[in-house]
């Protein structure tokens, strides 16, 4: 107990000394998020300092073992770090599919060689990873994917395409599900393969979203060489690893339902925009919806906290991740619906400085994708029903 308190005060002092002031403010827009990677241009010197300091401590990946550059913290210590960061409203030093997705899969299933090659650059934010799972004809039914690898001895030649690759054109490396045995039943012929996006034979085409932005791409493989030593785990065993990785992805997406560090309570925004009438928001129906939302926000947050308290640091939440993914994304959609209601007619503005280039409307539209990406809400409920509740069929 004393040791934990000592750790807390050490962390507090360290953050005080190392977290730049400007990194303790809420994001003004998505452009403030740090993603890292080979081509990353830091938005400010502070952003770069903050990432570097945290990476040196291994605190960009607090629970990863120190030999791979991680912080080596157990659950309780990691929780303290998180609490102390949110106490000063520190921004996450980096957002990274490397840390949230492929890293945990490598830690559990990767060879020592792959771990040593890939994990330290992820901790340092040097390589930006993207996910090649979905295909035009393989969405919810992911295991029916068609991108195929032909065995060439020490390497594969891959043909096919992936779709909805978030940040595809910005990715340095991809982890992709590729069919390495076309004869086997559909779940048994898939491998999880890692490759550099600069490999010849890979091209991307941007896809524009309803929010007017195009953060994702279609990705094409044309006689692309992929190395066999970059297969995670055993060839053709990729499906198990893919599902494990998805539990981490879903846990990450579930976080979108939580009040982000430094973000304002919905009710505060509503009070600022609409004012109070006798100490209350004047529309009692909107007020009730906001109250219900804020209650559910606390419920979700505490339940994620409880689930993590019950799980070993860094371990998968298992099928519960599907529950958190479902609740977190449905909550975030509700949040944006209410923000639009509070913003009212001004919230419709799409262009112009006043609206920060339609930031709210664009985020509202983007939030609709939350319950689709990483597996739809319906699929999450299927998983809860079958894997947790043991319902048949």
């Amino acid at each position: 107990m004393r040791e934990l308190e000592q750790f807390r005060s050490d962390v507090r002092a360290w953050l005080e000394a190392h977290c730049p002031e400007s990194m303790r403010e809420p994001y003004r827009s998505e452009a403030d998020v740090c993603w890292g990677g080979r081509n990353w241009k830091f938005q400010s010197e502070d952003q770069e300092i903050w990432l570097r300091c945290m990476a040196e401590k291994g605190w960009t990946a607090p629970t990863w073992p120190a030999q791979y550059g991680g912080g080596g913290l157990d659950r309780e210590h990691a929780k303290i770090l998180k609490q102390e960061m949110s106490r000063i409203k520190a921004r996450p030093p980096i957002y990274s599919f490397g840390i949230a997705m492929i890293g945990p899969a490598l830690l559990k299933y990767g060879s020592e060689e792959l771990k040593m090659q890939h994990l330290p650059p992820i901790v340092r934010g040097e390589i930006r990873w993207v996910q090649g799972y979905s295909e035009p004809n393989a969405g919810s039914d992911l295991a029916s994917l068609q991108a195929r690898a032909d065995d060439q001895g020490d390497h594969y030649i891959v043909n096919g395409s992936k779709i909805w690759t978030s940040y595809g054109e910005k990715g340095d490396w991809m982890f992709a599900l590729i069919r390495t045995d076309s004869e086997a039943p559909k779940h048994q012929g898939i491998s999880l393969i890692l490759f550099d996006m600069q490999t010849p034979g890979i091209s991307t085409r941007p896809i524009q979203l309803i929010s007017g932005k195009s953060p994702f791409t279609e990705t094409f493989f044309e006689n692309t060489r992929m190395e066999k030593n970059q297969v995670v785990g055993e060839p053709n065993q990729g499906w198990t690893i893919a599902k494990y990785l998805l539990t981490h992805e879903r846990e990450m997406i579930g976080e979108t339902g939580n009040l982000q560090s430094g973000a304002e309570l919905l009710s505060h925004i509503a009070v600022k925009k609409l004012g109070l009438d006798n100490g209350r928001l004047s529309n009692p129906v909107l007020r009730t919806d906001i109250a219900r939302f804020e209650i559910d926000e606390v419920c979700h947050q505490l339940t994620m906290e409880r689930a993590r308290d019950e799980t070993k640091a860094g371990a998968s939440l298992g099928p519960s991740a599907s529950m958190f993914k479902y609740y977190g994304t449905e909550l975030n959609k509700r949040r944006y619906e209410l923000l639009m209601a509070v913003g009212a007619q001004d919230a419709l503005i799409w262009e112009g400085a006043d609206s920060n280039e339609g930031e709210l409307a664009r985020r509202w539209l983007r939030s609709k994708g939350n319950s689709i990406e990483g597996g739809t809400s319906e699929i999450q409920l299927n998983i809860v029903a079958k894997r947790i509740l043991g319902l048949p069929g």
Partner: protein
Amino acid sequence: MTLVLNEEQLMLKESARDFLQQRAPLSHLRELRDSGNTRGYSPELWSEMADMGWTAILVPEQYGGLEYGYSGLGIVLEESGRTLTPSPLLSTCLMGVTALTTGGSDEQRRKYLPEVAAGSHLLALAVNESSVHAPCSVATAAQASGEGFSLTGRKTAVIDGHNADTLIVSARTRGTEHEADGISLFLVPADHPGIHTERYRVLDTHTAAHMTLDKVEIGPDAVLGELHRGMAVLDPVLNAGAIGQSAELLGVAQEAFERTLGYLKERKQFGVLIGSFQALQHRAAVMFGDIEQCKSIVLKGLRALDKGDENLSEIASLIKAKLSETAHHVTAEAIQMHGGIGMTDEFDIGFFLKRCQILETFLGDHYFHLDRFAGQRGY
């Protein structure tokens, strides 16, 4: 602190569950009802609960209690929600004891707490005056009379009012009807000749009472807490009550859900188990998730009571609002998913909806608590 039960708490949970499943399963409630029992609970069972130490959980050690806190009592309440076991745990051991530990003088505590801990003295809270829970709307007058007071007025929906040995009555010592200031609390012997009690039975076998007070003369030592500032005691008592009711609702919802899940895996239609229908699977999955959330917040609320968190009113209303809505949804869905048999008195599942409606309505339903939560958050 982590949001998980420690070993000692897990043991208490297990022993509470074993005891209740054996001594007071759902058939116990049915028997009480069918035998026309007027108390609404079984005194024999109550003395066994006292032997288990449950009546003493919240009482401080110096007054003969176990001082095991709200987290401990919450575990017992949750388990008694699963079996729908009627008892004065909520009125006496949770709210009554909280009133005394929050506002009672040493003398008052010494007078009541040891007997409460032993299970031989029951308390009841008489705070409402209309059908709607509104603790600040107090017209019952406490007029200075001699050295003490004379109480006149009418109190409604007093849980265990007809069973209690001592009533905790709110009455106005100054101010106008809807003001918080000027409300005082009094400890009044229930057998006082000026008190007229109308016992009534609610949906299931639980009982409550309307009580009329006509010039009930009491001494100055009957004042609980500070004169005019009764809300300073009543607020914490009602917060504890809301969280305790929520713990019980959690047990009600879990049991109704588990029984329903069992039915989905057993009942066949169209040649398959009904649990294979996605329309039912998704609704079950959402109920599961809602109940998981309820577990987290009830745990948090009980901890907050033990620590004496400063925003208890906000937390208590958050929890009661969420638990009321969730348990209601789950117990109503439980009937729907059972089909016709769910509507029959002979089958037990309907008891869960009834208990839910009672727990949720007494001391403020989700409308009351949503409104209060928003107010606590400043909107």
